[in-house]
């Protein structure tokens, strides 16, 4: 058997190459496995009847609301999973396609998002401070896209402006009107779209007579924006009414006493085909009936200040309000 030695040699080399191949293939396989388990469901597994994917954005309030929705729908007999997606630009198309079935949303923000998507960047605004009209406009935009907008409740998380406690005390500020009267020159930490949004720079200038000298484009309510205001680099912060981290930065909200802000009522938006049933509507309506803006702030505070887990906070809320039947 004169071939054996050559075979053995090539064999060793082949073994090495084979080992790499087998290793990679094997690893790919177990990689796939662990992904199925930890990927948060959905994905390739076809959600059958009675299983729902709830979408959540990556900020605290959205996470807690998604967990509360999950609790209510589970209680109604559905199997649920939560998918966290960073931005509306990514999850809204998924909601239309039915990759995601239910999302906690904000009336005015979503209405404007769809308005822009539908009618172009410079479309005239459809949302306003009138909650009823805003939701009506939202439904008109959402329905042709296969989205069903459920009824809004009292809870509102809309844009709001904050200053440091010292600044408020020094100039005796309680409302945005006070800030306008103070004649202070204001640099505003906000999103870079602020100069074009009626509720932002134009509104502050026209409605409140605030002297806005410039915008620091640091995103709405971001940590960087809060730090900039805290350090005095900027004077005014654009954030939201239920922001629970303001205290940590020594910031206080100024009241929107002339109702400049759009009505951003919290409401569930669902994929009409996959989650448009009355049963789902009824299950989620339980929350809509009881949830208030104060509740939202409190829920956010539990996660952002006391650092409890969103799932635990949601479970606690459902229990406290007696929203579960089982």
């Amino acid at each position, binding site marked *: 058997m*004169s*071939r054996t*030695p*050559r075979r053995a*040699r*090539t064999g*060793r*080399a*082949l073994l*090495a*190459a084979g*080992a*790499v*191949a087998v*290793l*990679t*293939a094997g*690893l*790919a396989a*177990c*990689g*796939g*496995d*662990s*992904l199925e*388990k*930890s*990927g*948060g469901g*959905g*994905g*390739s597994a076809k959600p059958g009847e009675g299983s729902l994917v709830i979408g959540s954005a*990556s*900020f*605290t309030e959205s*996470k807690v609301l998604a967990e509360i929705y999950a609790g209510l729908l589970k209680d109604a007999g559905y199997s649920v999973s939560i*998918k*966290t*997606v*960073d*931005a509306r*630009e*990514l*999850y809204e*198309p*998924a909601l239309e*396609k039915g*990759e*995601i079935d239910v999302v906690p949303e904000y009336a005015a923000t979503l209405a404007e998002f769809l308005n822009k998507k539908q009618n172009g960047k410079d479309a005239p605004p459809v949302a306003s401070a009138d909650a009823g009209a805003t939701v009506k406009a939202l439904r008109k935009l959402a329905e042709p896209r296969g989205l069903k907008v459920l009824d809004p409740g009292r809870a509102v998380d809309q844009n709001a402006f904050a200053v440091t406690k010292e600044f408020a005390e020094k100039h005796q500020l309680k409302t945005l009107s006070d800030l306008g009267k103070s004649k202070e020159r204001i640099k505003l930490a906000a999103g870079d779209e602020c100069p074009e949004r009626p509720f932002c720079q134009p509104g502050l200038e026209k409605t409140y007579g605030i002297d806005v000298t410039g915008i620091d484009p640091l995103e709405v309510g971001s*940590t960087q924006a*809060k730090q900039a205001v805290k350090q005095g680099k900027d004077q005014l912060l654009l954030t939201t009414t239920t922001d629970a*981290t303001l205290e*940590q930065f020594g910031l206080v909200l100024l009241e929107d006493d002339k109702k400049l802000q759009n009505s951003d009522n919290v409401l569930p938006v669902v994929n009409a085909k996959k989650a448009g049933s009355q049963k789902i509507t009824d299950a989620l309506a339980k929350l809509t009936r009881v949830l208030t803006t104060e509740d939202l702030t409190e829920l956010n505070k539990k*996660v*952002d*200040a*006391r*650092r409890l*887990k969103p799932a635990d906070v949601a479970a606690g809320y459902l229990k406290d309000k007696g929203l579960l039947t089982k």
Partner: protein
Amino acid sequence: MAERSCLVDNDWICGEYLSSRGQELVDATLQHIGITLASVAIGLLVAFPLALLARARRSVRGPVLGLTTVFYAIPSLAMFSLLVPVLGLSVSVVVTGLVLYSLTILVRNILAGLAAVPEEAREAARGMGYGLVRLLFGVELPLALPALMAGLRIATVSTVSLTTIGAIIGYGGLGNLVLSGLRSYFKAQVLTASVLCVLLAVVADLVLLLVQRLLTPWTRTRRKRAPRAGAAKSPAGQAVA
């Protein structure tokens, strides 16, 4: 609940964070490892034939190298966002993106490794009647292994760090924790997840280094008992072939 805890104080380093979020960290780490392994493995399986093709045909070489380099230049946020409409909100978006990123490193290194194989070694193998396939797997690939493994190590480490961007669609492993920690100003979470991510990259690099040493014993100079010494002597025994 504790009145004064490092969680409430929002400290960078917090034992309570580790104890209360252990499961979360384990899940995120497993997801991170899974995505990285799948991406690098698929990347290698795609890069190898591409490299062979590029080597065999000059006309293919330019486009392959050019295209994979273009992929590499696409910003990762844009890459994942662009893949979402095609692949949906699934883990395949992240894996596909990472595979595309790994290609340029892997293809170039495999090519460099193959190009560095001494012509004499090829000649000898051909003289011994080696066909193309056996020449490739029996002679060229083993000799190209050090360069290939070097590429694999770079690709793996860069994949570990790029995986975090997958957090924008919820499949970013430890990146999910970093992103949500940044959004809610949760220092312990940001730091812990980042440190784990760095550790993961270091461990992956060391493991691959170990694999490389095991696969290429002849590169260590200590004992020159290299298999190729045998190869040089053997033709005598090959007469039958």
